[in-house]
């Protein structure tokens, strides 16, 4: 048992350079190996290496959403909320995780932005929704966020910023709820989760979400060139406008994103450009 732990530690050490330094410290100078330290090191390496379970992702996502919806609640328009869920679910069905319990919402927030959280939670602000010109644009924005969820971009960012505390955070959220009837979280925002939305994700994750968002929109039968269209709309908003300050501080510029789309997509999606742009429902619900 202990021997296999050491083997595991060595294997992990070889796989991750950061961990190799820790292991070096453990082995260095002492007459033998301190097994307690090895066990601890294995635990923390395992924390960062192991994939997060769907249950853990749901716990985190729900907590993060409680904060985001605390900052701005849903727009009080059930018909609009259902419509966005239908479009979103249809796009999500084309992803690698069609069976997540996907939930979408439009928040009563004039800022231009959209958010995703682990477990399949996605929000788009009224500020962005109102600027959309077609259902295909909505589908593309949701496709961008769906990609963040499916590829685990937030989980990775949270693990990187929380260092070894990631699982402790999950346990803490779970404990907050325990013993209370309707989930009553601590009164403060869960900083381990919300800081991602203030600091932003890895730039490449944003570019990947743009390109894959177009792919998902195309798979769902929409015109994928709706995404570049949204980015030009956003690019035409004055960067000093308060409406885009958070989005611009957490995302690469629309310009850079369009450059990356042009370089990556080229003419690969031209044959899907005949997809649907608009539906009667969008026109009816979009003021």
């Amino acid at each position, binding site marked *: 048992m202990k021997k296999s732990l050491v083997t595991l530690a060595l294997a992990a050490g070889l796989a991750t350079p950061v961990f190799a330094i820790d292991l070096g410290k453990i082995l260095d100078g002492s007459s033998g190996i301190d097994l307690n330290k090895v066990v601890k090191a294995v635990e923390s390496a395992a924390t960062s290496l192991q994939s997060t379970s769907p249950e853990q992702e749901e716990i985190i996502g729900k907590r993060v959403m409680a904060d985001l919806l605390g900052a701005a609640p849903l727009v009080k328009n059930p018909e609009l909320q259902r419509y966005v869920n239908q479009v979103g679910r249809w796009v999500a069905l084309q992803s690698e995780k069609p069976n997540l319990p996907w939930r979408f919402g439009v928040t009563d927030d004039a800022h231009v932005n959209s958010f995703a959280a682990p477990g399949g939670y996605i929000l788009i602000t009224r500020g962005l929704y109102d600027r959309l010109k077609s259902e295909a644009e909505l589908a593309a924005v949701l496709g961008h966020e769906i990609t963040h969820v499916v590829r685990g971009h937030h989980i990775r960012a949270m693990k990187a910023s929380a260092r070894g505390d990631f699982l402790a955070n999950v346990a803490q959220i779970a404990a907050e709820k325990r013993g209370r009837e309707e989930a009553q979280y601590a009164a403060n925002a*869960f900083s381990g989760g919300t800081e991602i939305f203030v600091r932003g994700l890895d730039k490449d994750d944003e570019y990947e979400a743009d390109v894959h968002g177009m792919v998902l929109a195309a798979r769902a039968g929409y015109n994928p060139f709706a995404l570049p269209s949204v980015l030009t709309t956003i690019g035409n908003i004055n960067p000093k406008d308060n409406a885009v300050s958070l989005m611009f501080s957490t995302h690469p510029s629309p310009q850079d994103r369009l450059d990356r789309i042009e370089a990556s997509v080229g003419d*690969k999606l031209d044959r899907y450009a005949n997809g649907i742009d608009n539906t009667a429902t969008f026109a009816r619900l979009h003021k």
Partner: protein
Amino acid sequence: MMPKSLLIILLCASSLALADPGSVTRATDLKDKPFLDAPTVTRLAAGSRVEVQTRKGAWAQVSTRDGKSGWLKILNLRSATGSSGSGLGGVNQLLSVAKTGSSGNTVTTGVKGLSAEQIKNARPNPQEVQRMKSYSASSEEAQRFARSNRLETRSVKDIGLASTESQSNRGSD
């Protein structure tokens, strides 16, 4: 002043407002129709400013400042603040304020990251998460929705990210 002429001015103004300002990333042929083999109307230099009238598939119909009109690929299009470089920032800013009209007042209030603060200081609202859940659509509902809107799935291969080096050959920057 004649009311009729006023009306015409208003109509023109509103159709202008529908057009999005844009710029082209690279020297591009402006096409007569949204096809690669359509006749070329004119050649646009990198950074040329255009007004986007409409979009169709992978193409955008634009008008140039010297009154020409035609089609170019959407992926060659950027926002107006784009490839003309940061030197024109001031001009574009003015344009943007003019475009947003009265809401232009909020432009230079200097309140940055307001929303970031809102998020950091949020009091969690778990009831609202429950409400969000109540609007969710099942796969079956999504499929019904797609059928009624004639959305058909297509098999599309995933596309990897192009490396950074290959993207930075833009003209003026």
